[in-house]
């Protein structure tokens, strides 16, 4: 928690993150035409990126930090279930699905409170 208390830390963290992110874009630009995009190392990196993102999302839903910490797990899981059901039920409309899922979660919190 100490990092969040120092005012300069978020600025540096954002800048470091941005430099790392742009470095990938620049590397891709400079390598274009010279490296194949379907090599095994690219496939492995894709797996790692997806696994990391899935791990983060799972953690944000199951073990949230911040205001969602106070919400019941059942409300969050219900929000996910409704979001997924609406997404596939209504022709993969992501906008309607996220709104339905978030509303379900908030509704669940209201019911319990």
């Amino acid at each position, binding site marked *: 928690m100490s990092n969040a208390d120092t005012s300069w830390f978020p600025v540096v963290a954002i800048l470091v993150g941005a430099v790392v992110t742009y470095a990938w874009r620049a590397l891709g630009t400079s390598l274009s035409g010279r490296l194949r995009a379907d090599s095994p190392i690219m496939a492995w990196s894709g797996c790692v990126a997806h696994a990391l993102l899935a791990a983060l999302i799972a953690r944000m839903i199951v073990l949230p930090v911040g205001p969602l910490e106070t919400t019941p797990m059942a409300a969050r899981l219900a929000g996910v279930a409704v979001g997924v059901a609406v997404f596939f039920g209504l022709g993969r409309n992501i906008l309607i699905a996220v709104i339905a*899922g978030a509303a379900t979660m908030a509704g669940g919190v*209201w019911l319990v409170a």
Partner: protein
Amino acid sequence: MTASPSEPTAPTGGPADGYGSRGAALRAGLRLAVGAPAVVLAASYIGFGALVRSVDWSLPLGLMSSAVAFALPGQIVVVEMTHTGASLLLIAAAVALTNFRLMPMTLVLMGRIRDPEAPRWWPYAVAHLIAVTSWLVALQRIPDMPVRERTPFVFGFGLAIWSTTLTATGVGYALHEAVPPLVSLGLVFLTPLYFLLMMVADLRQRARLYAVIAGALVGPPLHLLTPDWGLVLSGLTAGTVAFSLDRRAAARDSARAASSGETLGDV
């Protein structure tokens, strides 16, 4: 920011002769973005703005993040890891692993849009505006355009999307304050939900399916075990397991298809 129903989002009927000039191609890119892509992206960045507010960051921090990073998964990693007290080195590693996908994406797109007449720095400026949305749309649209109009089109599209994310970050930040607590909880919940749906929407590739399942399974327990390293470790272990399982399955498939005993390297 508002949806324009007159703009088609399906890759139907691109201009066979291009837009006529680089400037016209740039404007066409701008116009195309102000429609369905911008609305969906705006919803996800409104969630990000609310998330930024919920961890008590200032609005300039949120705007700076969207402006200089312009890749939402990495931006969320920075917010969450700063909040849980991780070190700069681990944050950099997690962002690098999360955003690596931008490298092959840029590589593929740049190979197709590079204009030999343009100055050498120009593609590097366009590169900052390449994100999932602009990449998908660009790949659909550029085959119909002359080479000289391709980078201006991608730049125009990216610029509109980039401005949208900045606006939406501010809107989400303000909304988190202005709406009842229940609604702002819903806004913060938009972020994980949006990415979860983006991931389940695109699981046709077996390797990706394995990676998402494995990552979701090991993510929470590894976070409890080691809050600092949990995310990076989850990505590396689950990603590597998924990669090997996929290789094995691919080898089995092709062995079955060939059924001639041809040996493939078992990776």
